């Protein structure tokens, strides 16, 4: 498969970096000052991908189950850190949200690898690592939306929440409308993507596989697998993170703890981050 892919010389890749300077210069001239943010973003992206490329090469060669699962755990931790930061939540909710993210990811990966793809061995890094990355990338975006909507909704509509609580609702019952709204908002972009897939754009994974030399029909099957898996993962992870975090987010009397929100000075750079997404 690799033989069919045209390698890109670094000099030509550098031309693309230079080409980026043109639209940035135009935007700067229009008073849209994104030069610094773009530079930071591009440098980070390049450095991170270069590091991951080196590490993946090692992972694929070693193909050790412990190393592979340690990688899944590590990217779950990173995803969790970004979910908390972008949703404006404090570290008090770290473990319950991490548990929800990791459980949902492991369940989805088990479904992918043990039921559908069945590579030999099941933990084969060539399948486990990219699938885990896609699942967790999408899980990050949707959980940011869900948790932000859920907890900010509760904070801004405290009167409705407390009315339900004082009128006899349990915390689970009183939070249910907020959970429904948050889950719907978080799933909406994914549903829209699924319904336009193939019509508007060719999805990332499929494009990558075709560029890598795969037969289009096989690439499509993998794309269907990843879309269904991502949606499965989102449904499970959203519900788990919102339910598991409630024990830490509310006190014994069902009142929302103030300490679960990040202090305003900790919320820097989150506006743009909230829009960040992951492809499939």
């Amino acid at each position: 498969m690799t033989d069919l892919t045209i390698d890109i010389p670094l000099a030509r890749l550098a031309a693309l970096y230079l080409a980026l300077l043109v639209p940035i210069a135009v935007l700067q001239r229009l008073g849209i000052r994104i030069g610094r943010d773009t530079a930071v973003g591009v440098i980070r992206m390049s450095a991170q991908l270069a590091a991951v490329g080196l590490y993946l090469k090692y992972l694929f060669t070693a193909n050790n189950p412990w190393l592979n699962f340690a990688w899944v755990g590590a990217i779950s931790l990173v995803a969790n850190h970004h979910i908390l930061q972008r949703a404006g939540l404090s570290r008090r909710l770290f473990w319950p949200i991490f548990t929800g993210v990791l459980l949902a990811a492991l369940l989805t990966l088990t479904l992918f690898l043990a039921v559908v793809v069945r590579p030999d061995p099941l933990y084969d890094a060539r399948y486990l690592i990219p699938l885990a990355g896609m699942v967790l990338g999408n899980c990050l975006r949707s959980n940011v939306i869900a948790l932000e909507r859920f907890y900010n909704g509760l904070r801004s509509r405290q009167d409705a929440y407390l009315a339900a609580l004082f009128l006899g609702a349990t915390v689970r019952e009183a939070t249910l409308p907020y959970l429904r709204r948050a889950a719907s908002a978080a799933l909406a972009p994914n549903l829209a993507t699924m319904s336009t897939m193939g019509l508007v754009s060719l999805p990332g994974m499929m494009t990558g596989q075709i560029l890598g030399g795969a037969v289009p029909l096989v690439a499509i099957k993998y794309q269907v697998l990843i879309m269904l898996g991502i949606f499965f993962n989102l449904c499970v992870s959203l519900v788990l993170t919102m339910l598991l975090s409630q024990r830490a987010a509310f006190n014994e009397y069902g009142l929302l703890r103030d300490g679960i929100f990040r202090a305003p000075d900790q919320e820097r750079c989150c506006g743009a981050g909230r829009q960040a997404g992951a492809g499939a």
Partner: protein
Amino acid sequence: MSARGTTRRSLASPPAIRLTGVTVRAAGRILLHELDLSIAQGEKVVLWGPSGSGKSTLLKTIVGGMPSWEGEVWVGGERLAPRTVAAIRRRLAYIPQEPFAGAGTVEEALLFPFQFKARRQQRPPRERLEAELETLGMPAAFLAAPCASLSGGERQRLAIARALLLDADIVLADEITSALDPANRERVLAALMDRPHTVLAVAHDPAWRRRADRTVRLENGKLHGETIRA
């Protein structure tokens, strides 16, 4: 009810509400300071005092709505604690100053508490909804009205009707007639004060004090004397 009647009842059964050494702090301020208060079952007590004296905080503390407090709160012989708070809330009907009505109709707002498991069996029939609304001077046609179209006074009466539908042992009312004209205020007072449940109401209006078995004055989070109606 006479003060003597209240005393007789209090000997036979535990107080409806008892607070012992209750201190509430928020944002570095003391809102209630070592407060002791006992209210007998069926007693009607009115809390009054200047703004910021801790009246609303006292009601919120009883319903388990304050994040930080010390002391003991007892409701109908049960001490307020994490494992008892749900049962205590089921015995109370708390009407806040600005009650929540929701985006639906008046009927939906009245039935709001009965969607929860704890109260599902108590769901009242439509005739009861109409009767409680009419007691408070709102015709049955209001049931179909959207809550968004209600005036401040109508929203207050909607919350009172909802509290009455709960058939709770204790009603906690926080300035619930502030937006009502005298005729409707009298209707509310009759509906709340002539029933056998216990009432602890925050009210500045002298009409409330005239109807109460006892009035308690709060100032700077402390009790500053009480008056028992003869």
